[in-house]
């Protein structure tokens, strides 16, 4: 079992719902301060977006952030080198598009991530069918392969995905790209279907925007991923302190569930 998964299973066993905020690497010069603030605020895992020119699975907010970050010159290397300066032991998970690591070289990419203390990777356009090589490359480096399951995924596929998914299972709350939403969408059904196939921790993402949603979702899921809501705040000029406050409110909501 990859170390990320061991950690997250332990977390779940402790009764704590996981809070996973998402940040775009290199969005601002001080982007790591937001990461630190989130950790202070009670985040359990940090998801780091490494920007790609064509973020096909992202909504406008994260697209905008990715473009700004790219304009600042962010690369896989620069992101990793930034991350290496983080001191916290909170697990890091990278999110990027396949072309970034494909171009970098899969084995080299896995090594670079691991060297930056990244222990999990979400590649949303890497389908189960195409993932063999990457899974193989990650194996040697203790990087967990995190797969998404969508509301449209049928039971058969859920089972197959569950079979190879490591760290946690990413349950997509709705048929949509990343962005802000106000309800829980199809999350409950998706989580139940995954749960029937595996006992890996299941985190819900895509459109989780408010502590209230997070609380509701955490009644059946093991954690929540909060992306666009935070990125939007940062794009609008929020300080690390603001982000810490937001994270705290999510933390409280989850802890009360």
């Amino acid at each position, binding site marked *: 079992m990859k170390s990320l998964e061991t950690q997250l299973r332990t977390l779940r066993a402790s009764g704590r719902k996981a809070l996973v905020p998402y940040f775009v690497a290199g969005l601002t010069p001080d982007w790591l301060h937001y990461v630190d603030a989130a950790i202070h605020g009670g985040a359990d895992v940090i998801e780091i977006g490494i920007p790609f020119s064509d973020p096909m699975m992202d909504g406008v907010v994260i697209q905008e952030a990715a473009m700004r970050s790219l304009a600042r010159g962010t690369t896989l290397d620069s992101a990793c080198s930034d991350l290496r300066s983080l001191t916290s032991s909170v697990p890091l998970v990278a999110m990027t598009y396949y*072309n970034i690591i494909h171009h970098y070289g899969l084995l080299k990419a896995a090594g670079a991530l691991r060297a930056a203390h990244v222990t999990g990777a979400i590649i949303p356009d890497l389908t189960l069918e195409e993932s063999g090589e990457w899974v193989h490359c990650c194996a040697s480096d203790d990087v967990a392969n995190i797969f998404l399951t969508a509301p449209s995924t049928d039971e058969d596929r859920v089972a197959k995905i569950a079979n190879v998914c490591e760290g946690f299972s990413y349950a997509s709350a709705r048929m949509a790209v990343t962005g802000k939403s106000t309800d829980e969408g199809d999350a409950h059904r998706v989580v139940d279907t995954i749960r029937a196939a595996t006992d890996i921790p299941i985190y819900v993402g895509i459109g989780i925007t408010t502590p209230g949603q997070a609380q509701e979702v955490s009644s059946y899921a093991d954690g929540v991923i909060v992306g666009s809501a935070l990125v939007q705040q940062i794009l609008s000029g929020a300080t690390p302190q603001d982000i810490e406050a937001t994270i705290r409110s999510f933390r409280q909501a989850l802890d009360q569930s």
Partner: protein
Amino acid sequence: MTRVDTFMSAPDDRGRFGEFGGRFVAEALMPACLELETAFIEAWSDPVFLDEYHTVLREFGGRPTPVTPLRRLSALLGIELYAKREDLAHTGSHKINNVVGQTLLTKRMGKTRVIAETGAGQHGVATATAAARLGLDCTVYMGEVDTKRQELNVFRMELLGATVVPVSSGSRTLKDAVNEAMREWVTCVKDTHYCLGSVMGPHPFPWMVREMQSIVGHEASQQLVDLNVGTPDAVVACVGGGSNAAGIFAGFANSTARLIGIEAAGGSAVGLGSPGVLHGMRSLLIQDEFGQIEEAHSISAGLDYPGIGPEHAHLAATGRAEYYPIGDEDVLSALQLLSEMEGIIPALETAHAVAWIVQEVGKSIPRGSSVLLNLSGRGDKDVAQVRSILRAGA
């Protein structure tokens, strides 16, 4: 030189042509891709479906399009030049073949709506056309830059009952329109088919679109026999995503004809690109040293794409087809030459292929060769642009 009989057959189970192709999409779209693959395989071997497809293309689409001997240009160049006249197909290019097939398939899958991306508007107009004929809802994603450059095509789509959504992300051109259509497809995949416009995207699109365009090549090869030309020495087509080229190549894949794809110099995925993954496929892409996709640049909107269909990447890798770039300057004079000599104003895309032939005669195209040009579309859409360029240059 003998050729093995395996070119341009079906891709493998994962949708791979050699090392290119495959499926790289959000998991949310995988079921739709799988459903489409199954539906396409069934439909494409169902005589009833095939008959409807061919009937619609004949009664509505204007097929077969003729092969025109270009006599004056042939005499000028010292070759035997023939043109497969996709400019005469309904909506003015080969695009209609694909959209007729895909909209019929949409209906067969019980879906009631199509979405599409478009660059200059040709595929968008074609999709809106085929959708109108069947009463399907239609939404077309088009880069904001392109909606402004091609206002009239936006209006055309609206006349045809389609909704045009300007895409303001990224470079606000074709590549971003594809991204946006994919994003949108995730939200409505249940009742909506994504009618992709070229031999690109995730499996089964590159294969399916090639199959739906292969009518061009099959007609042409028979027509050249009827004209007593037989197998031509070379078949030349322009390449954006690669659908018109794939369509005509398909009729000659297992022949001795040289297959030649002409890319815009500023969008030459074979010349300037390297393997990468974009828009659901692994193919050759123009990208920077970090794997960020670069914008293509071409005088012709339809070739303004940083990638190429995966099967072309494979044909290039195996050497079965050759791909060459042509710069903007040569394109304009080729457009003028064909217009003046033969009374056919070609699309700027097509003019790339003409320009290459003119350039290569006496070099890689020996005098006396027989050459088949895929005249992929008419230039009506481009005359305003050509006029303003020529005026500015004069």
